């Protein structure tokens, strides 16, 4: 190595060191902007340009105009690390400066600048394209290539110097420049990596901070003294403070005092150990409520391992504690429940190892739970049973389904029945991993069950041996129980649980359901039903249904039923006899009610049809030489050749035969028996009548008629039919006889009735005539009288002069007669009226009535000559007007017959009898002979001549009539020339009679 080389080497090292120094300064001064924009590139380029200037200012000057420096290194690395724009700017600055330096190597120098930059850019491209890292060799190779290029470019220097230059610089350049390139490149790579790390760190920190700030869990950080230096939002939210409230405060600020000691003990330990877990504190919230929290934390140390701060997170476990407490309580309850269970409950795993046993299990095995846990089934259960239980356990764990079994085992020499339930316990994945075995000693239940079964069997045996049916139905008529009898006898009862609608036809089912409802309502029902047996036979059942009160639910219907078919049939037979009697009795009553034999027969025949369902019945009655059909019952159609009421000449021989036989039944081919010449009978056979029956009606050994029954069925007439028909025939014979008698009586009665009617009509006619007569008398008899009287008077008035004295006298007689006639008419009318008019009873004051009548009868001109005595007459109950008439007539008579006498006295008195009052009028008149006493009360009967005593002879008749109508009596006593005493009596009222009786008794 020559002198120049060594000098060059020295200068070049200087220059390289400068470059390195400047590079480091540049790198630390130029903060790399995150923003990759043009301005950044330009500024970077200018910066690098300054560095290039700096290294070019201190070059190694080999000769004039030939300078060497480390610009090639810088530019190649610029291209490689900073890219095109900064590279071009730096290169431009370098070229300008080199041009200003001038000299022989000016162009070579410029070309070296460009070449270096190009190689750097090329390396950068290669780095990105092929992902070639910026390692030592990459940088070194860049250095070698760049500087070989540089040496090659020296050849373009003036020929006089290039050899010299090459000789001087080759060695130092090739030794130093690649190495410097590597060193500076490495520096750049380092810086680049540092930058990347920093960015990553910043990102990480910001993420962490976000996480920290927004973390859902509360975080806090304490310094060495226990003061709060950081808390996150969740922490603030959890405790309700503001950050400013708590930062810088000691942790005990938020701690419940009871926990100061815990903190004081644990904080140093925490700091020493570097972490803490599940330390529980009760923290005080701003609103003074407390929360229970659990802390987990780590400490942060500096690089030297000294404590910096704590990082703690806590979680609110208040709720969790509460839940744990509840869970614990629930567990305790569950445990006590399980323990209090009568059953033995244990939990086993797949191997049959016991994990849990309740007190029941402990007791039954006489071991404590601690002793039991861990034991296998084989140690616990009796030998045979353990295998069985394990098998079940495996099945439960494999299927996940509960299994319930009953098993028998001998425990302590005693047979015990167990009811065992094995249920799976599932893990979090839903796979069964444990089994709960619950075993209950059901020995006593089993025993009871057996006893029940036995009782049940006895019940069923009893039921099944009942001679009748027994059943139980629910309230919907569903058959819950039917005994063997019912199941066997009646179709549809073999299967239990069926409703009537499933067994019977709809109508019947509805009736049964209704019946059952009634039973449920009324409690009891007794009935006779007809039921068709499975074999089709009809049976009568006497059924009693009753309510079975069911403590467990709706009431049930119980029923017992007995086959009463035989009794029923017997009863029916009895009934049919009764029916027969009833019909015969009816017949009797018909006989009594009805008058014609034919109507008796017709009515009877209809009734008889109820007993003998014949096709045709003909009642034949013998009437002289003929037989008459008195009644006929025949089918609705056909048989027109036989008619009711027809007469025919009988076959007498046959009738004699019948009379002898009494009854004849021809149940089969009657034609073979019948004599010829019985066309009607033969026609009937042709018309399908196959059975005949004849019953004679015999009265006093004489046939009076016969019955003829036919039926379209062969062999129809039974012995019973015959019996009934005979009875009927006898009855009819009797009826006929009776009727004949009745007819006779009737004839007489009719005759009598007719006569009575005739008489009544006659009487009525007489009455009518009488009434008409009365009326005529009233109206018409008077008119001629008036005319006679009138015209006689006119004669006497108008023609008195022409008439002789004698004629005048005669006219007077005529007038007098007419007046008398008028009186007579009036009295007769009066008498007639007495018959017609009804009495008007009142209380009659006899005393005043008599006095009144006396006044009118005994006129003033005669009164002084009469001695009239009136006793104090008692009252009576009578028709006042009529009684007045009585007194008037009697008094008139008394006056009339007393006038001729000189001693004139009239006495009116009374006699009191028990039941009547007797009044009388006594005079001192002429009297009459008592032999005529009966005549005086008759109409027109007079005992004296008219010239002696005026009068019509009706007065006493009227008296008698009136007193008769009062139910009283009239009589008279008389003696000639002494006087007459006429009595009449009026009956007393019942009240008066009673009163009288009482008075009599008192006396």
């Amino acid at each position, binding site marked *: 190595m020559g002198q120049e080389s060594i000098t060059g080497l020295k200068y070049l090292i200087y220059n390289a060191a400068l470059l390195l120094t400047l590079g480091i300064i540049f790198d630390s001064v130029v903060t790399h902007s995150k923003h990759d924009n043009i301005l950044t590139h330009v500024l970077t380029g200018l910066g690098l340009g300054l560095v290039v200037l700096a290294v070019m200012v201190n070059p190694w000057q080999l000769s004039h105009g030939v300078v060497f420096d480390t610009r090639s290194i810088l530019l190649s690395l610029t291209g490689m690390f900073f890219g095109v724009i900064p590279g071009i700017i730096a290169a431009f600055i370098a070229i300008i400066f080199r041009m200003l330096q001038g000299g022989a190597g000016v162009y070579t120098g410029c070309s070296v600048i460009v070449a270096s930059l190009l190689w750097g850019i090329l390396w950068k491209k290669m780095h990105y394209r092929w992902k070639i890292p910026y390692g030592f060799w990459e940088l070194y190779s860049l250095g070698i290539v760049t500087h070989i290029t540089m040496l090659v470019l020296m050849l373009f220097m003036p020929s006089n110097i290039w050899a010299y230059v090459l000789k001087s610089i080759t060695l130092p350049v090739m030794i130093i420049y690649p190495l410097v390139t590597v060193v500076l490149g490495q520096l750049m790579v380092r810086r680049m990596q540092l930058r990347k790390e920093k960015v990553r760190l910043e990102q990480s920190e910001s993420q962490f901070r976000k996480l920290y700030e927004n973390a859902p869990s509360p975080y806090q950080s304490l310094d060495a003294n226990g003061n709060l230096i950081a808390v996150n939002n969740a922490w603030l939210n959890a405790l309700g403070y503001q950050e400013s409230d708590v930062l810088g405060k000691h942790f005990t600020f938020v701690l419940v005092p009871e926990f100061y000691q815990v903190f004081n003990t644990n904080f140093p330990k925490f700091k020493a150990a570097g972490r803490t877990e599940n330390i529980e504190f009760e923290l005080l919230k701003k609103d003074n409520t407390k929360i229970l929290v659990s802390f987990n934390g780590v400490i942060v140390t500096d690089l030297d391992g000294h404590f910096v701060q704590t990082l703690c997170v806590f979680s609110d476990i208040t709720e969790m504690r509460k839940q744990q407490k509840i869970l614990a309580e629930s567990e305790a309850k569950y445990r006590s429940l399980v323990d209090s269970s009568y059953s033995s409950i244990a939990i086993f795993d797949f191997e049959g190892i016991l994990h849990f046993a309740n007190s029941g299990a402990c007791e039954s095995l006489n071991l404590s739970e601690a002793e039991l846990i861990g034991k296998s089934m084989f140690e616990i259960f009796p030998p045979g049973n353990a295998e069985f239980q394990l098998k079940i356990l495996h099945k439960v764990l494999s299927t996940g389904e509960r299994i319930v079994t009953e098993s028998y085992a001998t425990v302590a020499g005693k047979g015990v029945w167990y009811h065992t339930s094995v249920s799976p316990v599932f893990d979090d994945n839903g796979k069964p991993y444990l089994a709960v075995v619950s075993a209950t000693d059901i020995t006593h239940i089993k025993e009871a069950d057996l006893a029940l079964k036995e009782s049940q069997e006895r019940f069923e045996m009893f039921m099944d041996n009942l001679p009748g049916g027994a059943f139980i139905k629910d309230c919907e008529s569903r058959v819950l129980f039917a005994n063997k009898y019912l199941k066997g006898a009646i179709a549809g009862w073999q299967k239990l649980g069926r409703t009537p609608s499933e067994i019977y036809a709809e109508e019947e089912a509805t009736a049964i359901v209704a019946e059952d409802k009634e039973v449920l309502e009324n409690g009891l029902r007794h009935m006779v039903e007809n039921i068709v047996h499975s074999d089709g036979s009809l049976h009568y059942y006497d059924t009693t249904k009753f309510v079975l009160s069911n403590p467990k639910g709706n009431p049930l219907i119980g029923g017992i039923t007995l086959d009463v078919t035989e009794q029923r049939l017997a009863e029916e037979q009895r009934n049919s006899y009764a029916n027969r009697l009833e019909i015969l009795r009816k017949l009797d009553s018909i006989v009594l009610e009805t008058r014609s034999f034919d109507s008796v027969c017709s009515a009877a025949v209809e009734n008889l049809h109820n007993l003998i369902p014949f096709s045709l019945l003909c009642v034949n009655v013998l009437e002289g030489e003929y037989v008459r059909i008195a009644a006929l019952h025949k089918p609705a159609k056909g048989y027109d050749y036989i008619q009711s009421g027809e007469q025919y000449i009988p076959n007498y021989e046959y009738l004699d035969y019948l009379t002898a036989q009494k009854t004849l039944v021809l149940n089969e081919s009657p034609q073979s028996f019948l004599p010829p010449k019985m066309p009607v009978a033969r026609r009937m056979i042709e018309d399908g009548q196959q059975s005949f029956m004849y019953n004679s009606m015999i009265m006093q050994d004489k046939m009076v008629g016969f019955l003829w029954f036919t039926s379209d069925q062969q062999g129809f007439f039974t012995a019973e039919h015959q019996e009934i028909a005979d009875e009927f025939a006898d009855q009819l014979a009797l009826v006929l006889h009776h009727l004949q008698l009745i007819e006779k009586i009737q004839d007489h009665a009719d005759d009598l009735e007719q006569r009575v009617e005739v008489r009544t009509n006659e009487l009525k006619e007489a009455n009518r005539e009488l009434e008409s007569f009365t009326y005529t008398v009233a109206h018409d008899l008077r008119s001629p009288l*008036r005319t006679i009287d009138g015209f006689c008077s006119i004669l006497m008035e108008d023609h008195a002069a022409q008439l002789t004295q004698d004629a005048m006298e005669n006219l007077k007689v005529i007038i007098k007669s007419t*007046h008398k006639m008028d009186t007579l008419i009036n009295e007769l009318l009066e008498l007639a009226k007495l018959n017609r008019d009804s009495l008007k009873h009142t209380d009659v004051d006899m005393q005043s009535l008599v006095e009144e009548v006396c006044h009118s009868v005994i006129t003033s001109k005669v009164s002084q000559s009469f001695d009239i005595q009136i006793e104090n007459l008692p009252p009576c109950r009578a028709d006042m007007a009529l009684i007045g008439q009585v007194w008037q007539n009697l008094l008139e008579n008394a006056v009339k017959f007393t006038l001729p006498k000189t001693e004139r006295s009239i006495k009116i008195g009374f006699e009191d009898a028990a039941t009547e009052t007797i009044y009388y009028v006594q005079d001192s008149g002429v009297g009459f002979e008592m032999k005529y006493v009966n005549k005086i009360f008759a109409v027109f009967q007079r005992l004296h001549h008219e010239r002696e005593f005026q009068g019509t002879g009706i007065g006493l008749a009227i008296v008698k009539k009136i007193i008769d109508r009062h139910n009283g009596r009239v009589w008279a006593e008389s003696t000639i020339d002494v006087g007459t005493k006429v009595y009449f009596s009026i009956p007393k009222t019942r009240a008066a009679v009673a009163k009288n009786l009482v008075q009599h008794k008192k006396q």
Partner: protein
Amino acid sequence: MLYPKTILLVEDNPGDVELTKRALRKSGINTNMDVAEDGAEALDYLFCKGDYAVRNPELSPNLILLDLNLPKINGLEVLKQIRANDKTKLLPVVVLTSSKEQVDVEAAYTNGANSYIHKPVDFIEFTNTINHLGRYWLDINESPPRI
């Protein structure tokens, strides 16, 4: 007085007619008497029918003396028809009969008779009765308005 008052006597017995006429005459009452011999004639007279078709219907009698026992149509029926007709319903009708029967009295008044008088048999009594009757009904009593 323009016209003498008219009496319609319904009476089948000519003796009674004569006696009545005489009695009225003797009483001196100025009156004109028409006689109907049976019920049918009385009705013809009153309603201007049959033989009486030409009678002036305006001249209805001032008084009707009516016997009950009449041929053809009896007195009660005549009375009923008089009362049933608007023209005659207000006419004074005096029943003059031999009957004293309560039934007849009742029937007469029930059918609207103004009076019921029993003919006495005695001539003097009869004359007095007619006399009183005529005076009362024709002189004293105010006739109903003519319709």
